[in-house]
């Protein structure tokens, strides 16, 4: 597995310890080549031209949809909607489903771990519809307890928004349990798989989720391509989100009829190059295999956690239950601001994120302003961890004599 790093040009040329894959991953040569080949030999506007190049671009685009449907075990490829990222997919759901279906006193229930993208749109639609927004809070292990799930999701709950893996704590939520219970209560579930699908197999039918969203760029694909999966009957009953070219059937001066799925939700010229890159990313992930990815990540992440635990000035924000923890490790040097730590790490060739990680309500709930976050992926090695730990020690040394004890 340590050989995989060679497949990533940016990691070869810059020699940094890249520990910010939770924000975006680096891209393997195979993905870069696939996109390059598309623009060199296959590019035209799909669904438009009668000429062979346009037909080729259409073929590439639609075969990509098929591939993604198979990858996540969707019933049909028409339930795969391309978006620019998970945020756009979540906004689509909030506007086209939430705004239309929520009524006064209905409830939307989210976890406090949600990324702003699965939180702010729900604030907007619950305010617009006079419905209520409620949160499931985490316990001292940074996990949602059963009691919390069962007490917050009620007969009034119509929508549950839940992230599969927290981008701050790395907690893997028991989404199967949440989905089952939400359905029992008559609610639909919006699953944010952005932080999970790079690391684990997603089977939308097995999960029985009503909506699943993810961004390509967090799973080795280029920026600017995301996926929305939805159950067919739900998608068919929804209004379009964005309107324009390619999502229509007949357009009259005053009226329009819309195209069937999936085109109904894909207005304007789509990101075919992005789909090509996403498909190549899936090939790469499948070539390595989720089992190997997980085994390798576990080894590297556990090594990191153990090393960090040896430093008594480090506070970790992770669950002690190893099986519920993914590849994200949030930490702070006690008394030192994360931005200062991140700058010092950067000067030592270590890339970590610092800040609130687009999760301000979670930060407020935890009583902190921000954290440093090291997030790992298949190309990270124990050497990356050693670099991280070395530079944390350097950062601490710089601040040590000024820290008021």
């Amino acid at each position, binding site marked *: 597995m340590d050989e995989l790093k060679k497949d990533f040009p940016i990691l070869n040329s810059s020699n940094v310890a890249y520990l910010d894959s939770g924000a975006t991953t680096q891209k393997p040569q195979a993905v870069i080549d696939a996109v390059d080949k598309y623009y060199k030999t296959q590019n035209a506007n799909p669904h438009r031209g009668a000429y062979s190049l346009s037909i080729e671009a259409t073929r590439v685009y639609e075969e990509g949809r098929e591939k993604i449907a198979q990858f996540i075990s969707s019933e049909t490829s028409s339930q795969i909607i391309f978006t620019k990222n998970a945020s756009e997919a979540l906004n689509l759901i909030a506007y086209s489903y939430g705004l239309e279906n929520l009524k006064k006193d209905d409830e939307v229930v989210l976890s406090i771990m949600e990324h702003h993208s699965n939180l702010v749109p729900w604030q907007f639609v619950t305010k617009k519809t006079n419905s209520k927004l409620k949160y499931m809070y985490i316990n001292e292990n940074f996990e949602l307890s059963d009691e919390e799930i069962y007490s917050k999701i009620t007969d009034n709950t119509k929508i549950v928004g839940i992230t599969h893996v927290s981008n701050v704590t790395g907690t893997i939520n028991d989404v199967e349990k949440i989905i089952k219970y939400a359905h029992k209560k008559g609610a639909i579930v919006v699953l944010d798989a952005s932080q999970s699908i790079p690391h684990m197999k997603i089977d939308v039918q097995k999960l029985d989720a009503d909506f699943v969203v993810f961004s390509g760029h967090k799973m080795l694909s280029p920026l600017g391509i995301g996926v929305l999966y939805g159950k067919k009957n739900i998608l068919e009953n929804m209004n379009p989100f964005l309107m324009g070219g390619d999502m229509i059937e007949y357009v009259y001066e005053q009226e329009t009829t819309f195209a069937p799925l999936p085109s109904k939700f894909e207005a304007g010229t789509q990101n075919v190059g992005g789909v090509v890159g996403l498909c190549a990313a899936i090939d790469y992930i499948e070539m390595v295999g989720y089992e190997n990815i997980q085994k390798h990540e576990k080894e590297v992440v556990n090594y990191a956690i153990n090393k960090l635990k040896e430093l008594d000035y480090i506070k970790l924000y992770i669950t002690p239950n190893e099986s519920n923890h993914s590849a994200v490790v949030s930490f702070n040097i006690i008394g030192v601001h994360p931005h*200062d730590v991140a700058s010092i790490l950067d000067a030592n060739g270590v890339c970590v994120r610092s800040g609130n990680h687009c999760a301000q309500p979670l930060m407020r709930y935890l009583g902190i302003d*921000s954290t440093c976050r090291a997030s790992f992926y298949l190309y990270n090695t124990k050497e990356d961890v050693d670099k991280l730990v070395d530079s944390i020690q350097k950062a601490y040394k710089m601040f040590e004599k000024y820290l008021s004890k």
Partner: protein
Amino acid sequence: MDNLEELYNDIIMEHSMNSYNKKELKSCDFCEMGHNPNCGDEIKLEVKLNGDIIEDMAFTGHGCAISQSSTSVMIDVLKGKTIKEAKDIIETFINMIKREIKDEKELEKLEDAIAFKNISNMPARVKCALLAWHTMEELLNKKGE
């Protein structure tokens, strides 16, 4: 790394960790909140005037060593100055960070705040250093209204 150790120098560290300027004034004439939403840094500046002179200043809030020390050093520099002098110093500081100062002599009026000169080599941290200065600029502009 060299740049960085130059930046995290004694002035900046002392001011960021245990600043005597970090407190609330018993009474103040003006106060202004400043924040960087992307990183969560927040400060509240309090100013007490005596006529045209900044008689006393203090701050509260939280943030990184750069934003906290920059605030504290700014208070040291601006205390006792007239509003006009303060505006001029603020402008000079902002221009120093933007590397728009041609004549190095101009920087003398910044006193200890010259310690932040090298922040311009770290684009990701420029906004941390400027937070207090922009907030004070805003406060003084409002005061003139």
